[in-house]
């Protein structure tokens, strides 16, 4: 019997497996791809690892740093997990298929680090012809940076999230023309450093605009764009067409939690990931979650950190037959907080809070009124995750809940 089966060999899963091994646990790491690293091998741009490795790396380099520490971990690639069976708190099974056939392995705990999927064209209400040349940003990244295939010549990108912006740079560098980035919201969706890419390549960004229709025979030929008002409603008469052969959708990521919902893990509708305590344990005892399956992160450094935390949780679970706490203090969303995790705090350990705001604001205070904690920040944006440490002694001041709210300073 394994102590931990880690589902997913991306940064969260690898960091979890490495930490679990360091803690003396018997670990199996499963990934459905035929190479480890999750999305990292295709994220060939620099900017990774500043916090975690104190050095700036590309995605593949970050992945190799982790892979090199996997010695002693049993790893299976091309292994797709079909089912998780929660037999009891202390005995679970993971059913997976691989070139060796279908296997069912017993384990004491599971760390679920299956990442996220991309939202696709149908989810954002684009209508028209079903033609070739419509991709998600991640698909184009796989095509170009793993397989060396250019997806198109004249490209329109929907959404100004980080993956879309990074691909705008890749397309431009490799000689394609990025004709426009179309963003529904009145502010950009990606990190400020990535918005610089649009300036570098003179790519027009249309804020408060929406792609509504695609037309073409066999292949994308033209794309219809319309302006939206503050309630995101289309403004009649503002339609225009852009000629392009490729439409790239970068409309956000959704935590990949299907296998967890099948066994009744409670999901937080605002993160799209499971509701967790401060060991990243889900509502099913002994099942932990880390990385983009927990909530969509913007830095891989945080993803790896969550993997390690989940591994420490798994060790504690095995040693104590569960994650004990005298009481759980709820962390609650207040003003201008769109999502947060973890949801339950024990007050027995320091905790990193990950959160996102609803709308951009300048000169703000992040407040936790029940414990009297205040943090001043010059600027906050929905694209940039807030990561705040709450100390054991601060958390223990609370009765039953701690509210997090972001308000104007003064």
């Amino acid at each position: 019997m394994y102590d931990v089966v880690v589902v997913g060999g991306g940064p969260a899963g690898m960091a979890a497996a490495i930490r679990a091994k360091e803690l003396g646990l018997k670990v199996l790491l499963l990934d459905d791809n035929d190479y480890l690293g999750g999305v990292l091998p295709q994220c060939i741009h620099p900017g990774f690892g500043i916090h975690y490795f104190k050095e700036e790396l590309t995605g593949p380099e970050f992945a190799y740093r982790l892979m090199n520490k996997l010695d002693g971990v049993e790893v299976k690639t091309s292994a797709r997990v079909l089912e998780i069976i929660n037999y009891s708190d202390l005995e679970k099974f993971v059913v997976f298929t691989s070139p060796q056939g279908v296997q069912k392995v017993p384990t004491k705990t599971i760390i679920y680090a299956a990442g996220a999927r991309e939202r696709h064209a149908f989810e954002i209400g684009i209508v028209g012809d079903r033609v070739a040349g419509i991709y998600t940003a991640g698909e184009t990244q796989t095509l170009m940076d793993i397989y060396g295939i250019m997806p198109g010549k004249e490209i329109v990108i929907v959404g100004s999230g980080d993956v879309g912006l990074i691909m705008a740079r890749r397309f431009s560098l490799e000689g394609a023309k990025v004709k426009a980035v179309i963003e529904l919201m009145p502010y950009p969706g990606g990190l400020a450093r990535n918005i610089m890419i649009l300036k570098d390549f003179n790519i027009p960004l249309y804020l408060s605009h929406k792609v509504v229709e695609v037309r073409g025979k066999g292949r994308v030929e033209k794309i219809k764009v319309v302006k939206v008002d503050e309630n995101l409603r289309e403004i009649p008469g503002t339609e225009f067409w852009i000629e392009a052969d490729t439409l790239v959708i970068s409309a956000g990521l959704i935590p990949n939690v299907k296998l967890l919902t099948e066994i009744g893990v409670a999901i937080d509708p605002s993160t799209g990931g499971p509701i967790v305590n401060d060991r990243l344990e889900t509502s099913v005892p002994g099942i932990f979650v880390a990385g983009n399956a927990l909530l969509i992160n913007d830095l891989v450094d945080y993803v790896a950190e969550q993997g390690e935390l989940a591994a420490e949780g798994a060790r504690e679970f095995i040693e104590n037959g569960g994650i004990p706490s005298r009481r759980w203090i709820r962390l609650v969303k207040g003003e201008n907080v769109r999502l947060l995790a973890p949801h339950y705090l024990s007050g027995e350990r320091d905790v990193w809070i990950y959160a996102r705001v609803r709308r951009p604001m300048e000169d703000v205070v992040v407040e936790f009124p029940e414990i009297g904690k205040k943090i001043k920040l010059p600027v906050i944006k929905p694209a940039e995750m807030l990561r705040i440490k709450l100390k054991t002694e601060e958390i223990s001041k609370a009765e039953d809940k701690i509210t997090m709210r972001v308000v104007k300073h003064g």
Partner: protein
Amino acid sequence: MGKVYRFTCIVCPLSCTIEVEVENGKVKDVKGYTCPRGKEWAIEEVTNPKRVVMSVIPVEGGKLPTVSVKTEKPVPKDEIPELMKFLAGIKVKPPIRVGDVIAEFEGVRIVATRDA
């Protein structure tokens, strides 16, 4: 009063907003940076903008069809199109390890960022 350039720093994910004031072609003042690297970058962004460049190069018979590469140092922005043309002409054979030097362009080494 000189011209003020406003940037989002791209040195690290902190994304500081840095303002550089330039008068008669000389940097007069730099504001908004949190680290010396950011200050240096902002001054360079006005006087001689540079970027780390990444791409992929075909690998004949490798584990994956391409190997990812990056320039070891940032290169001047106006040299990037020429660098990309140079990279488009290269093919490599396995084995390649992370960190191997694949080629050199204008004195800047092009290193592999994946195994192949």
